[in-house]
């Protein structure tokens, strides 16, 4: 999956589920989504389900931590690392 595609899918999900009439450009990507009332525990569980099915990754319980899910940048970094791993793993298998 291309990096742009990952970013587009995340952006659509965030805008549909947390931001509504606010655009991604207006949002401080280092702002706490939890502390600022954008997401609650049910929202986090739904986000994890979305990430698993959309990017075909496994999100382990011990990865559902503030360091990975508190801000938009946290989430981007986390997904970036997971998707890179998958790409690397697929390349290795193909090779």
């Amino acid at each position, binding site marked *: 999956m291309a990096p742009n595609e990952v970013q587009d899918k995340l952006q659509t999900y965030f805008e549909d*589920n*947390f931001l*509504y009439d606010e655009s991604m450009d207006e949002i401080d990507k280092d702002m706490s989504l939890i502390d600022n009332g954008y*997401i609650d525990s*049910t929202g986090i569980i739904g986000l*994890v389900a979305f990430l698993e099915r*959309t990017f075909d990754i496994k999100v382990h319980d011990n990865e559902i*931590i*503030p360091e990975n899910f508190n801000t938009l940048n946290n989430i981007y970094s986390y997904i970036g690392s997971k998707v890179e791993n998958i790409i690397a793993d697929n390349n290795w298998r193909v090779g």
Partner: protein
Amino acid sequence: MHICAKCLLNDNIPSVRINSQGFCNFCTPWVDTCQDNKTDDGFATLLDEYGYKKYHVLMAYSGGKDSTYTLKLLKEKYGASILAVTFNNGFLSEACLKNISTVTDILDVDSIIVKYPAGKLIKVFKFMEDGKFFPRQSLERASAICNLCIMLVKNMIYHEAIIRDIPVICFGWTPGQVETSKPLLRLDYRMVARVFDNIRNTVTENLGSEYARYFIDEDFMKANEDRMPYLYYPFVTNWYEEEKILDEISKIGWQAPDNTDGNSSNCLLNSYANQSHMERYGFHPYAFEISSMVRKGYMTREDGLRKLDKVKNDSTCETVMKRFQETS
């Protein structure tokens, strides 16, 4: 207003967009479906690993149809040892309280009911009713009053599970209420504490520190990090069908209350909460849950429409409004 041709979401709801084919943005992507008993969800194995415990599961038992069926499933299918804990928000119907007693007797399940002072609860329900302190996503999924009540339930249930060292918590969430691919999930204590903190801070700062005891904080969670319970979602791997559920729970003495609305089978407050939400936001607070059930094939579109049509029970709604008005 446009309504999705597949589910029941309409574009009065801020996050909903209907495309030129008539489908909403929640129906167009790939949709999860229940694995219906085909997969070992790990719950039975987890119970085995714990071996004997007085209680394996703390069931958040509302007395409604879904949590009653979940309780039956946990007991009869998995043989779990269960403590059923009910939060009485002061608005549980008489029939609901009778159902709790009857069902736990027949299933041979220990049960406790926790009730906070009615006046204090009504005061906080009234304060939070306008919804401005909840995430917008939460207000698309439930009314502000329901969101607050669920938050109080979660705080109480986590607290009871932790102090009693019960390793699993289960709620009677339908497949439409929680979108999850994980039947078993153990959340990091900091994630749970931070979500609770938001509402606790809002309530205590505005209504007084006497409300602090109804919420658990990060210090408590941190001190009990090793006791953080699993959350179990049985409907990820067990099929949900309302007709079958009603049939199954009738065998253990459950009877439907006659004074609730079309989307609650235990709580009288729900009628008022639905009405208040619809007046404020212009859409039904159960539209997301019901639409999700329709989308995933748990319910027909026609049945979903019928449920959403029963917003409130008029006389119950009036009774609740009167109690709200009498509480200053």
